[in-house]
């Protein structure tokens, strides 16, 4: 069986050293470190107070008010990077067959900040106060799912959850989908937003 050649036609990124590919690349070649003192929450009292956060991030610059409330940060990051990649690739409506275009996204955890917030609500205000968006906001495949909804892809859509290897597994899965001729285009990569009050101390030995 002939295997198709696979090429990358567009890339996107939002990282600790840049809010897009150009900024990220400039930082990398200039040796800029993304590590700094944690700003997302109060770290006083923690033995480790540094992390590679995405800095100066303002969701309102990227999403409307309703989206900001409905999208966990990990999903926001995925959508920002994907938007840049889709644009870079010139993947516009009419240029692809929706049935043969899909998304394989990677994430190690998912919306852990949402999980934390809603769990606190459950235990302080009671189960009736849990948001109906709790599960659709935090599950690990919502970022990839929303990308297909947004761009109208109807091909394969699933998420790899394999800790730090999640995005790599997503990319190889997407690569194989194209190589084996099952699809024409795939959006793939990974995102995570785990530097928060409950998750961070758990990562420190």
């Amino acid at each position, binding site marked *: 069986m002939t295997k198709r050649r696979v090429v990358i036609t567009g890339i996107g990124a939002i990282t600790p050293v840049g809010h897009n590919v150009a900024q990220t690349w400039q930082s990398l070649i200039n040796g800029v470190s993304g590590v700094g003192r944690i700003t997302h929450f109060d770290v006083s009292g923690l033995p480790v107070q540094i992390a590679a956060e995405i800095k100066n991030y303002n969701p309102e610059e990227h999403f409307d008010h309703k989206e900001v409330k409905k999208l966990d940060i990990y999903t926001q990051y995925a959508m920002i990077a994907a938007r840049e990649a889709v644009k870079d690739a010139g993947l516009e409506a009419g240029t692809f067959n929706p049935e043969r275009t899909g998304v394989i996204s990677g994430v190690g955890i998912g919306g852990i900040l949402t999980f934390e917030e809603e769990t606190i609500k459950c235990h302080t205000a009671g189960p009736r*106060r849990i948001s109906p968006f709790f599960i659709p906001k935090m599950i690990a495949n919502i970022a990839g799912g929303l990308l297909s909804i947004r761009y109208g892809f109807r091909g394969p859509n699933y998420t790899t959850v394999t800790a730090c290897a999640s995005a790599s597994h997503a990319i190889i899965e997407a690569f194989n989908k194209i190589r084996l001729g099952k699809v024409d285009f795939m959006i793939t990569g990974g995102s995570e937003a785990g530097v928060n009050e409950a998750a961070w101390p758990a990562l420190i030995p």
Partner: protein
Amino acid sequence: MDIEAKVKQIVMDKLGVEEAQIVPAANFIEDLRADSLDTVELVMAFEDEFGLTIPDEDQDRLRTVGQAIDYLKEKLG
């Protein structure tokens, strides 16, 4: 703040719509683009703000901005 102003504030916040769109006849789903989960969240926000419980069977009575205001006025009156 009166009930109407509070309801407006909640609807703006939860549905991300402009104040001018929030007229009494505005239907949350058809006019203000709420989905079914949004409407649940709206009801929860009304419950939190006004300190009452809105039973599931009453939720059909809160389909528009005006209906929500009337309902809350009736319950709080």
